[in-house]
């Protein structure tokens, strides 16, 4: 009996202490895309480090690229009664009810990295991160320059249905249309942001189109790497066609230096993460923030490869 009572005391004390702790440090729920991912990991780390500096406690939830899971994790955030939510959306619509629920509970939310549909705007304070659509456009411009505005290309896209993929492919294709380019897209294949899958689909693309591939647009540098490996397997002596990737990884920089790749677009995950938490901190301090806060994007080619820092 005594044991039970003292247990209750301990529990109560713990609860009081804990709630006191919560009252002091602000807690922010960060629903990230994944724990282990070339881009997401450094962004997560940067966000966490910056949060530590700001004295904000981060509740880190990983969706593991599963939208379903993410929509449910928003429930956890609300139930936990956090002070703010930073969401990495993987779908333009699906999170809206969760965000609405957060708003009902007076929890401010912002988006990091990827945009959502317009209907989401009323439920979020801001969207920080790169403009994936703009990245597509920039890639189109870069590839047009490299190919003098004509020829045929293949697109190695990310995961089908993923917001980033949609933006990056859409921006690219729309831009080509917009400028009435003579560049023809031979095919768009999905390689799920996966190097191995990119390697496999590239082998098939090379067999299928051979010389017709005069340019390559990969939705990220990992997949560009896959294409380069496949090309080297098939044509060890020939130089690669112009390849444009996105993200600005270290090895992409090296490929640009060696001439294997034409360009990449630097989108710093560190900036991405920092900007999000900084914005959230301002919101928590009661400041107004802009509804759209982009991170800088830089096209890197042979010319400026030595003057720009790789993203990660």
């Amino acid at each position: 009996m005594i044991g039970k009572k003292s247990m209750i005391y301990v529990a109560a004390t713990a609860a009081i202490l804990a709630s006191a702790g919560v009252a002091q440090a602000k807690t922010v729920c960060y629903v990230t895309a994944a724990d282990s991912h070339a881009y997401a990991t450094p962004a997560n780390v940067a966000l966490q480090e910056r949060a530590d500096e700001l004295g904000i406690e981060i509740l880190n939830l990983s969706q593991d690229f599963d939208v379903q899971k993410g929509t449910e994790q928003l429930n956890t955030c609300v139930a936990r009664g956090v002070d703010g939510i930073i969401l990495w959306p993987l779908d333009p619509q699906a999170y809206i009810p969760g965000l609405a629920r957060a708003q009902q509970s007076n929890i401010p939310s912002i988006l990091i990295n990827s945009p959502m549909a317009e209907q989401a705007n009323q439920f979020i304070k801001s969207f920080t991160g790169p403009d994936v659509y703009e990245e597509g456009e920039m890639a189109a411009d870069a590839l047009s320059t490299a190919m003098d505005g004509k020829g045929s290309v293949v697109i190695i896209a990310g995961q089908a249905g993923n917001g980033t993929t949609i933006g990056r492919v859409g921006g690219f294709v729309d831009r080509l249309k917009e400028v009435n380019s003579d560049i023809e897209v031979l095919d768009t294949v999905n390689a799920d942001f996966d190097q191995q899958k990119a390697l496999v689909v590239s082998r098939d693309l090379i067999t299928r189109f051979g010389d017709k591939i005069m340019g390559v647009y990969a939705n990220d540098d990992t997949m560009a790497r896959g294409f380069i490996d496949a090309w080297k397997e098939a044509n060890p002596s020939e130089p690669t066609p112009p390849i444009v990737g996105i993200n600005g990884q270290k090895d992409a920089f090296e490929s640009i230096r060696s001439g294997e790749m034409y360009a990449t677009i630097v989108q710093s995950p560190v900036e991405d993460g920092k900007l999000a938490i900084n914005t959230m901190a301002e919101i928590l301090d009661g400041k107004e923030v802009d509804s759209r806060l982009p991170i800088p994007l830089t096209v890197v080619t042979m010319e400026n490869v030595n003057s720009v820092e790789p993203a990660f």
Partner: protein
Amino acid sequence: MRQTIAIVLQYRVAIILALTLTVSGLIVPGYLSETTLSLGLDRAAAIGLIATGLTVLLIAGQIDLSGGAIFALAGIVSTILQPSLGILPAALVGVFVGGLCGAINGGLVVGLKVNSLVLTLATMLIFRAVAHWITNSQPVTGTDIMFSLTMAQIYLDIFSIRSALFIVCIILLHLWLTRTIAGRNVFAVGSNATAAEESGVAAGRVVFFGFIFAGSLAGVAGVLQSLVTNTGSPVFGSELTVAVIAAVVVGGTRLEGGRGSALGTLGGVLTMAALTMAMEFQSVPAYLQQVVSGLILILLVVLDRTVHTRGRAAGAIPLLVTQNPITTGGKP
């Protein structure tokens, strides 16, 4: 003592759930609250509804890996048809599509007499492909985001529409499995299909309808998910199957068929949800969460195995020759 162990074993799911809640409540501040309960329930609903359907199939000795794909497909269909049919009729069509997928699974398993593990692996790929096909791999959006917000509301401080539906389904299934002849026949088919068949139970039909039931419930879950998120996406539910199987097995349903219960599944689903929520509250990294849920799954199954084997051995003791009244001339 034996009896105590038996009781503990019988209610082990409830005990584990209670333990999870108590420990989490002590460690995690602000865990035991109405909001956590209601949102946790809502969170468990999607897995729970699919698990409800899978429970019947597992008891009947079959398995369905395609639940996640049906979930996505049904949601997409119900979303795409919203403009032409209106929200509710479209939702019904979505559920119907789920049932249809189940019928395809069931028809093939029963008709071709093939192993359901492999066959539903195949239909999983097919249904998922169809989902990608009709959406062109893009998520599709519903007509009315306000409806989604209503769906996401918490009523009576505890239930959202889908969590209420989940609980109702589980209770109905419990009654059906324990109180109806058809329900008992499901156990018979899972335990010994040949014997059931020879006793006049249409084993094939039981399995067929089991698949339809599982498909329909995956459809219901998918449609609800799409309504709640106003989105139908071909990538929805890709990680669900594993979570669903784990929840049902933790709930004490045997993968080989013949044994299981709806309330056990409820316990399993709630345990896994409570655990996930507690760990998320503590910001436990996803990979460590995986380790914990994996360990619980393995521990429970191993426990079940050892106890079960022991039980069987005890049953094999030849006592019956002496204790059986037949051998003693009908006198006890």
